[in-house]
């Protein structure tokens, strides 16, 4: 039976709660209601109010208490109702959670996964559309994940909950119930280790490196470019930290052209980081300047005309692809 993205994550949470009796879930409205999007449905009924906590609207308390629970032997899934709200718990994440292992010279490890719905293209406006992963990529000690398929979401979530490192898990909410990407999920205890990019389409003329929702925009752009005889490779990095540089470099060695696509604003975004690393380690492979297609350096506005104007689009990606090929 085909399952959607949301169901895949829900299954991962249920399986890990079952498998790990020391796992706790905490978040706003995750118990009685089952979460704003229903990702945590059924968890509290099955595992009780002790292990599935309906938290007050207090992101700092949610993250801070998750740190304490982990310190005292638990694994914690902490939900941000929208990933935008993570800023309210920022200090606890970057100064407390992320640095704990480092500060204690490895004595304490943090089994905390912070997950939440993220991304634009849904008319969510400024505070329900963000991709703010760059804030955390700039804070050493946090692993960052952003899957684009149901099976990846499940395998990566299960790995995250066993990793004993802080993990930030960006769930593209536009994909939650997208039937077009629903798929059969692998049987059994399916786990995907971090740091392994996935080549979603093979090509020889240029490489799109992307993650999350933009994977589909890049695939569509590759279709359009193919009509003009341009063969684009599409790499879904799946995890930003750690980043699978090897797969990207191998691709660039073949295609000699790079376009990085993501939803976050351009300046100091993760696309820039990928470009910088490839410029450093793969400069001799490049036949054209590496390009970025990102959100403009603006917030995400509400009206559809505005939102689509500032976010990456298939058209913008195709144009960037043509630019590197014609350079």
């Amino acid at each position: 039976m085909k399952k959607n993205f949301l169901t895949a994550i829900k299954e991962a949470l249920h399986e890990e709660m079952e498998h790990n009796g020391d796992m706790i879930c905490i978040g706003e409205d995750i118990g009685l209601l089952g979460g704003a999007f229903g990702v945590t449905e059924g968890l509290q009924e099955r595992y009780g109010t002790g292990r599935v906590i309906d938290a007050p609207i207090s992101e700092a308390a949610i993250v801070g208490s998750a740190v304490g629970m982990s310190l005292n032997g638990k694994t914690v899934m902490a939900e941000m109702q929208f990933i935008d709200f993570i800023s309210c718990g920022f200090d606890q994440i970057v100064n407390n959670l992320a640095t704990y292992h480092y500060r204690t010279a490895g004595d304490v490890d943090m089994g905390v996964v912070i997950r939440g719905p993220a991304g634009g293209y849904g008319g969510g406006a400024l505070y329900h559309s963000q991709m703010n992963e760059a804030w955390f990529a700039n804070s050493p000690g946090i692993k960052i994940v952003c899957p684009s398929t149901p099976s990846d979401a499940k395998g990566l979530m299960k790995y995250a909950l066993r990793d004993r490192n802080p993990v930030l898990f960006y769930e593209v909410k536009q994909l939650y119930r997208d039937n077009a990407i629903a798929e059969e999920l692998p049987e059994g205890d399916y786990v995907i280790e971090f740091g392994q990019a996935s080549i979603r389409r093979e090509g020889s003329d240029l490489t799109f490196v992307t993650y999350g929702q933009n994977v589909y925009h890049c695939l569509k752009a590759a279709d359009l470019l193919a009509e003009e005889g341009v063969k684009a490779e599409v790499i879904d990095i799946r995890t930003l930290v750690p980043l699978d540089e090897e797969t990207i470099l191998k691709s660039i060695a073949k295609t000699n052209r790079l376009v990085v696509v993501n939803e976050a604003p351009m300046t100091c975004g993760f696309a820039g980081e990928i470009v910088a690393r490839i410029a450093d380690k793969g400069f001799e492979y490049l036949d054209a300047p590496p390009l970025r297609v990102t959100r403009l350096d603006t917030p995400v506005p509400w009206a559809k005309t505005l939102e689509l104007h500032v976010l990456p689009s298939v058209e913008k990606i195709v144009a960037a692809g043509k630019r590197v090929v014609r350079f």
Partner: protein
Amino acid sequence: MRYNLGSFPNARNLGERNLTAKNGSATATRAKASDEPDQLPRDLLTREEYLELFRQLYLARYFDVRLIKEKKKGRLTGTLYSSHNQEAVLVGSLFGLRPNDWISPIHRDMPAFFMKDLRSGWDNPDRMGMTIEEVCAQVWCKAGSPGRARDNWSHIGKKAKHIIHSTSMLAGTIPVAAGVAYADKLDGGDTVVVTYNGEGSTAQGVFHEAINFAAVHKLAVVTIIENNQWAYGTPTHLGYPLEDYARRADGYGIPGFIADGQDVFDVYDKVMQAVAWGRSGKGPSIVECKTFRAYGHGDHDDDRAAKYRPPHEVEEGRARDPIAIAKKVLLEKGYISESESTLYQAEGKSAGQTTDEDFPPEVVAYLKRGVDYALKSPAPAAEEGERWVFRV
């Protein structure tokens, strides 16, 4: 504990008792409020325990004095946050804890790291506290520190000894304490978590978020507010509109105690009541300890502190030395003789005015052990700077 928990007065009633500290001159009356339990926790202490509390005050003071002197000689790196004149808060709050209870000290609580569970024996290797050697290695910025000198001063902890690690973000350990207590409660435990905070940190949002969460889940978190009248360079009236910080408890429906922070026995009484409240499953509480910061915020600030703190205020604030107050109690109880009371005269003296003769020899020897270890401990290897970002 056999004493009667009584019914808990709210902070308002406590505030009506004459326990407020204005300009540091806390004048605690021992007048018994009608809602105070008949028997106080201290009434169950033996003579030996009174004497041990007294001895621990000297230990905390000597640690501080020694560090101030070392810093002045240029032998320490970083900033030193003195706990001088605030020792009763630490000693009185730590003394009655069970070995397995958790604590989270902050910058001005450095002695707490090695004074936790000191009651199980100063030299007991199984004691649930850090050793004096570990703490000194941290102060000397050496690899022998529990954190291998990765973060400075009080930013250490030890999971195995139930000591939570702090950051520079004030009140930031209270949610962690709540999480520790939550996990413990879920597992059927009855340990209590005691967090230490300056009065200034109570204005942080996370202070509210964490105590609110703890109150909702009735978690055994005791939030001690060390009200030393100054948040760095800002006086209390610019930090909170009310006189008594214990009244912050009102908003959560939890007990808010006020202790005379200069009186180790009063701190012990109030914290033990708060601890018993938490351990019995009734939830969190706040204990405000009225005290006075003897020096600047940090030693870098000692000279500039004169700019914002009038000298007469400092003089008044330091007049009620916790060692002198405890000594008087021991004399009154006949636990020490007049001649014994004059053996060690650390009270009322600034760090520079004291000599080792002002402290019991076992206290001096204890610290020497720590310092000797620290001096022998190497600096961490440079490569360690990039280790332990992630667990591998």
